[in-house]
């Protein structure tokens, strides 16, 4: 199956082509099922390939399947070829696996939306681009996927484009991603100029020959790209706004797959990352670790006070990605990938859960406002831009949904536990492994920050859980909400099973479970090194993580669970400065707008309106005007008076005489100079010039007043 690897990305592409060109002949539902089926087959193929590779045992180092020569110019050459190895297969499994579940869930979720075919075309295109990203065997093919997913996230975020808020959110996502891609592009250029090739095999084969500084620069550029794609500190601003897209999109793209592309890129370039030194002793990996942990902390603080159900999860994703980068930064590559793996499942679960909650709330809302059962109307206006501005996503309007939507509630609880890192859940194992390895690597400060963030994660997760499911419904809509159809709850259950058991199946025994053996051959000997200083025993760090998680849940219960707020007003937290800061996302968006967007628009307006038109164009038109004015001026020189022309002729005589005198060869000159004493000649020269000045300045103006009319002699 390995050499048929190209089938896997081809299937979603096939879906796109069929639905685009022959979509008219299929009903909305049919094209949806077609798209889901194709991704399902791709998932199955991946599974088969994985087992085949496991069969080959440890020494399977990855195989390249080349299709054709993509781009050659001079000595630069790149082929369109796929790399089949443990890492790429794992990522493919995540993409196609989670992707399949989300496709199925979307059939139910988007059932009533008229643009359903367009939605599934984009979703398939996204899966295709993501597969190209992970399966590509060189950085350029990876980049093709990298920008492809950027495009799909733009299209999907602004899916309900009739509302400008969504369109702008999509545009913001695309442009911020593009800034990241700018850095990746530069990284690719630098890679090619240093290594002479872009294929991973060639590059990682000749790492030693290259100086650590250059490697540092390459990895730094790639990391800047990753902060764009995986929403880390400087370039994370697009992810929270990306919630404007349909919820399954948020689940698939902004939780499970696309945002993990950054982590994949760094882990893929692990050989480079290990040797990369930024400045003297500050490694690129240190930068990655610090940015990761700071992002985790920062995003967690914002998530604490958000009221929109999806924004909490968005900031939680940014935070969990921070953990993954922390893992990469401290060299715990396998742990980071493991966390990526588990996070994909439980975060997708939480997003789909919240989607199901919103779905229920809508039906509840419709039930009361129109008095008749919720008929299929345009989904677009439902979820956003409500005519009567009832925000289905606002947790303050929810409450007590436990009884109304038991299945969603239970799966949401499991997802929450995993996210919070409740002992034995998948999140617990993966997050704890990163924290322990961080501590073992000697990064104690990072460990402490990590633990604090874990506590906050547990708190806001269960704050969300209690606000949504606990207590009594705070609004009529919540009272009338009811469970989503099975096509949506079944994927929830599957994901919930994964969220619970993934840790146990793959994680145990710690650090050499199934997962680690799978990735070992690829990442062998890379990354993790035992830092000096005190090493927490494994069991101790496990205990600390559990305590922190449970404490967070308990605090959330105390605050939100025991006496759940009865009314919406009560639910809106009244907080001081800190609360305002957190709720308004530390005003980062406003700062970016003021520092970057506004000056750029002013510059654009200035150069377009003023500089281009008056300065450059002005210069061009100025030259034209100059010529016409000059012509006019010279014209006036012809005064019409014959005698002034005669005067001109005589003074011209002197000027020419003077010029000839200057230019005649010297032996003739001294011949002439004998004629008259030199004094006379200089006198002549002087007067000649005077004549010129006299003639041109004082030439007769045309105003000949009071001259009698020559013919009739009358004035």
């Amino acid at each position, binding site marked *: 199956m390995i050499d048929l690897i190209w089938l896997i990305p081809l299937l979603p592409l096939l879906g796109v082509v069929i639905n685009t060109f022959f979509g008219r002949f299929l009903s909305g539902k049919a094209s949806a099922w077609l798209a889901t089926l194709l991704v399902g087959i791709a998932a199955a193929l991946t599974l088969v390939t994985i087992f085949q590779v496991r069969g080959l045992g440890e020494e399977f180092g990855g195989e390249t399947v080349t299709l054709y020569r993509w781009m050659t110019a001079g000595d630069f050459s790149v082929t369109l070829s796929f790399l089949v190895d443990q890492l790429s297969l794992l990522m493919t499994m995540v993409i196609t696996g989670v992707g399949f579940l989300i496709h199925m869930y979307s059939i139910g979720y988007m059932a009533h939306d008229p643009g359903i075919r367009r939605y599934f075309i984009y979703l398939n295109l996204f899966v295709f681009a993501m597969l190209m990203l992970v399966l590509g065997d060189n950085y350029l093919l990876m980049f093709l996927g990298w920008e492809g997913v950027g495009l799909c996230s733009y299209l999907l975020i602004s899916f309900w484009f009739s509302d400008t808020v969504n369109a702008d959110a999509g545009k913001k996502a695309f442009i911020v991603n593009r800034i990241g891609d700018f850095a990746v592009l530069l990284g690719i250029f630098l890679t090619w100029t240093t290594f002479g090739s872009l294929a991973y095999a060639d590059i990682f084969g000749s790492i030693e020959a290259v100086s650590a500084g250059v490697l540092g620069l390459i990895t730094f550029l790639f990391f800047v790209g990753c902060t764009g794609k995986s929403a880390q500190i400087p370039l994370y601003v697009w992810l929270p706004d990306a919630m404007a897209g349909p919820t399954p999109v948020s689940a698939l793209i902004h939780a499970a797959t696309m945002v993990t592309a950054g982590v994949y890129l760094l882990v893929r370039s692990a050989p480079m990352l290990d040797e990369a030194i930024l400045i003297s002793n500050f490694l690129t990996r240190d930068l990655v670790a610090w940015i990761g942990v700071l992002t985790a902390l920062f995003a967690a603080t914002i998530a604490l006070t958000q009221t929109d159900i999806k924004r909490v999860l968005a900031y939680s994703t940014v935070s969990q990605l921070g953990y993954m980068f922390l893992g990469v930064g401290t060299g715990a590559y396998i742990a980071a990938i493991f966390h990526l793996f588990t996070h994909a499942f439980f975060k997708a679960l939480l997003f789909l859960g919240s989607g199901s909650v919103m779905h229920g709330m809508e039906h509840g809302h419709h039930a009361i406002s129109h008095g008749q059962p919720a008929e299929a109307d345009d989904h677009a206006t439902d979820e956003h831009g409500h005519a009567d501005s009832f925000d289905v996503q606002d947790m303050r309007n929810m409450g007590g949904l436990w009884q109304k939507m038991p299945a969603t509630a239970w799966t949401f609880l499991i997802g929450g536990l995993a996210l919070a890192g409740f002992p034995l859940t998948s999140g617990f194992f993966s997050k704890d492994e990163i924290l322990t390895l961080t501590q073992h690597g000697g990064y104690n400060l990072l460990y402490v920050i990590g633990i604090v963030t874990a506590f906050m994660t547990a708190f806001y997760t269960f704050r969300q859980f209690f606000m949504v499911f606990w207590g009594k419904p705070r609004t009529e809509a919540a009272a009338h909400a009811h469970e989503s159809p099975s096509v949506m709850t079944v994927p929830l259950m599957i994901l919930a099973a994964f969220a619970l058991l993934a840790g146990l199946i793959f994680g145990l025994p710690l650090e050499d479970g199934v997962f680690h053996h799978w990735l070992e051959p690829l990442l062998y000997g890379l990354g993790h090194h035992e830092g000096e200083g005190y090493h927490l025993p494994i069991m101790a760090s496990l205990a600390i993580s559990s305590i922190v998680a449970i404490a967070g849940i308990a605090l959330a219960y105390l605050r939100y669970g025991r006496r759940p707020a009865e009314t919406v007003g009560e639910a809106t937290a009244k907080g001081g400065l800190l609360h305002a800061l957190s709720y308004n996302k530390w005003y980062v968006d406003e700062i970016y707008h003021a520092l970057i967007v506004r000056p750029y628009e002013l510059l654009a307006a200035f150069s377009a309106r003023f500089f281009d038109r008056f300065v450059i164009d002005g210069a061009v038109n100025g030259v034209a005007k100059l010529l016409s004015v000059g012509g006019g001026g010279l014209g006036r020189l*012809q*005064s*019409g*008076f014959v*005698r002034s022309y005669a005067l001109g002729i005589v003074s011209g005589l002197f000027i020419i005489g003077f010029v000839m005198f200057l230019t005649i060869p010297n032996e003739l000159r001294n011949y002439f100079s004998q004629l008259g004493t030199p004094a006379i000649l200089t006198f002549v020269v002087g007067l000649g010039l005077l004549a010129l000045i006299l003639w041109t300045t004082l030439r007769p103006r045309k105003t*000949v007043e009071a001259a009698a009319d*020559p*013919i009739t002699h009358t004035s």
Partner: protein
Amino acid sequence: MEALTTITTTHYLILSAILFSLGVLGVLMRRSAIIAFLSIELMLNAVNLSFVALARDLVSLDGQVVVFFVMTVAAAEVAVGLALIVAFYRSLGTTDIDEAHELYG
């Protein structure tokens, strides 16, 4: 003192230079067409004088031949010139050259 008594070619040349310059002055200053035309004749004459002086000086008749041609040309010129002046007069009613200044700009 000897320059005063023996007249050399240079004297004639200087005289012709002076006459020539006066001719130029006449052309530049006077507004009457006839006077200007006469000044031109004067200038031509001055040149003839210098030709003859140099012809004598270089003992070659070519100078005089040239003068002969200059004279014929001058005659032709006067004929046409005067006809023009008459036409000018008939057209503009005056011989003042400054009146004809429509051709400007």
